[in-house]
């Protein structure tokens, strides 16, 4: 395990068209049909969005949750590159790919959700620096670019290693590009972390302007801090979740030792999050809503109980951190908790004063979201098949 050679990622070269991939394709096709309906009949044709409920499933899941769950990218980059724990390097590439695809799909989700998709470039010209959303949009835009740049060496590595197949000029260009990226990469890595801290927190600031609409269990001036902390907390569990799935379905290398290693940090961050949350509830006296048995309070209890406290307790124990099952289960808890939190803040905790209080997403909203997630998984599958992202199992590699 002390092998310092970390660049052992290779294209998987496994058959692409497995039954699982075909299921993804079915979801992609259904999603595409609803997307066509959205762009011919308008948002009303496929969604339950209304005057009272301008943001629904697409903002809650595709955008807010999508951004949070892509946090594996910047947390792993912080650990391996900025803190210099290169031991964890082999977790970096899959985390980077997930972040890159995650943010790409945040933008695709936004394109479907906003009324004038063709006008998405306008915030670059028309600035409103008072708007939290403006800052989020700028950060997401720049960060997505940064992620693509960070991913470029992986693409170059793939094509550079086949000298016979392309002409000399291309090889020269790849070499130059690699050298340039190698020299400047630290800028993008640091910028990626900074941009992430900015917009992960600002996603929480989005709701600071709605003190009368967001349920007091979630509305707090420290919402941005809570969003940032929960995004950091879910970073490593996402890496573990995805690494475990890749291992079992794509026979990639078992990174169990590394995963237990990074899982040490998770209970600490969850603990910070929990103390912030409890402290805020005590200071603001919002704990009185905890047990009033409304949909909001129950949803809150699930969010914090299953999503924060349970995985924190599980991961505090070293034996459990070293058990694949417990580690995977705890990671799922943290991920589920963050999904619950974002959905609670943007959907369940959002109480329009006049319109119908309940909102359930329409079939079209659900299938478009599923279609986008299936496309994301499909692209992940294609990219790990053809580009050096994952490390194969050791016995396979030798």
């Amino acid at each position, binding site marked *: *395990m*002390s092998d*310092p050679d970390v660049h052992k990622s290779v294209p998987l070269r496994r058959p692409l068209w497995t039954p699982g991939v075909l299921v993804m394709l079915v979801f992609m096709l259904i999603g595409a049909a609803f997307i066509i309906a959205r*762009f*011919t*009949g*308008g948002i*009303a044709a496929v969604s339950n*969005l209304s*005057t009272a409920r*301008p943001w629904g499933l697409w903002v809650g899941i595709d955008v807010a949750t999508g951004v949070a769950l892509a946090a594996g990218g910047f947390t792993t980059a*912080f650990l391996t590159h900025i*803190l*210099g*724990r*290169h031991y964890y390097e082999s977790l970096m590439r899959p985390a980077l790919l997930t972040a890159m695809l995650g943010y790409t799909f945040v933008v695709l989700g936004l394109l479907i959700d*906003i*009324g*004038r998709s*063709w*006008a998405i470039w*306008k*915030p670059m010209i*028309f*600035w*409103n*620096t*008072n*708007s*939290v*959303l403006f800052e989020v949009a700028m950060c997401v835009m720049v960060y997505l670019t940064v992620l693509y740049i960070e991913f470029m060496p992986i693409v170059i590595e793939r094509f550079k290693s086949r000298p016979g197949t392309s002409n000399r000029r291309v090889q020269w260009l790849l070499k130059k590009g690699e050298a340039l990226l190698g020299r400047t990469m*630290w800028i993008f890595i*640091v910028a990626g*972390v*900074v*941009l992430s801290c*900015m917009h992960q*927190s600002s996603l929480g*600031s*989005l709701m*600071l*302007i*709605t*003190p*009368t*609409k967001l349920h007091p269990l979630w509305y707090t*001036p*420290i919402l*941005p*801090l809570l969003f*940032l*902390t929960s995004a950091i907390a879910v970073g490593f569990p996402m890496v573990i979740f995805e690494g475990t799935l890749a291992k079992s379905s794509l026979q990639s290398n078992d990174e169990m030792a590394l995963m237990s*290693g990074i899982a*040490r*940090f998770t209970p*600490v*961050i969850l603990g910070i999050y929990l103390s912030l949350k409890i402290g805020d509830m005590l200071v603001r006296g919002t704990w009185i809503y905890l047990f009033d048995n409304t949909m909001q309070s129950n949803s809150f209890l699930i969010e914090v109980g299953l999503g924060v406290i349970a995985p924190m307790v599980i991961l505090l124990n070293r034996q459990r951190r070293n058990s694949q099952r417990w580690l995977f289960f705890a990671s799922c808890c943290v991920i589920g908790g963050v999904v619950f939190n974002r959905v609670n803040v943007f959907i369940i905790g*959002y109480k*329009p*004063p006049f319109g119908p209080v309940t909102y359930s997403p329409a079939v079209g909203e659900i299938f478009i979201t599923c279609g986008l997630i299936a496309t994301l998984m499909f692209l992940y599958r294609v990219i790990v098949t053809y580009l050096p992202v994952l490390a194969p199992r050791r016995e396979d590699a030798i």
Partner: protein
Amino acid sequence: MKLGAAGVASSLVRPKNAQAWESKAPPDTESFGCLTDISRCIGCRKCEKACSEINKLPPPMQPYDDLTVFDQTRRPDAEHITVVNRYHTGRLDENGKLAPNYVKIQCMHCVDPACVSACITGAMTKSDSGAVHYDASKCIGCRYCMVACPFEIPAYEYHKPLMPQVIKCTLCEAEFTRNNRPPACATVCPTEAITFGKRSTLLELAKKRLQKNPAQYVQHIYGEKEVGGTAWLYISSVPFAKINFLKLPHKPLPKLSETLQHSLFSYLWSPIVLFTILSVVLFKRSKKDVLPSSNTSEDGGKI
């Protein structure tokens, strides 16, 4: 890791160079608004008709004199910029009969509007005239204005696939700034329930009415202080809570988020500080790496 998180955390909660937040509202003595006297409204819905005509909205499903419209409480939508609702509050008229109250609702044209602060491109603006103005040519359709509005007013043309707009009252801004005419609803109102004028004048008028007839009015001018003030004001003979008016904080809604955003990101000082700190850490760490003993499994636990 913890150190970095703590650094970020402290930079988040401790605003540096925080300037006191200031209202960007035009002065009351120069900006316009309307005062609705609910005790005068007879529910004729002529304002709805005038509004529909001047804004070229589609004709209504039911004629304006069809009283069954009042059987349901309505909200403004993409085809109805203003609506009048009927409430039975238990108030009795001179003959001892239950008397209804009619309430016209539309955009309140807040003094410090949340929608204006929220709008990603600045498509929503607070005009010097007092109106909250929507410029569709800048709009991307994110609908954050609708999320931000405490009165749940802006509506959206969800059925349009490519060019939907936010629909809300314009205060007939073009009418009074260009043609020197009051808003269509105020012009047409037969009982003068809607008065158009400078906000300061309207506040004086409202106070005068409340003082002159203290028994007839609830001693509250709705919109004087709610969410920092609105250009559309209301006075009423029945408690506002009974006719579906929201109890709202007096603090302007954009204050918190704008203070936070500007104290954190003016001159991008906090991202620059964070970038510098992280770069220093990165280079210190990578120098250590040059040492022959590469960091391996024993490097855990030291963070």
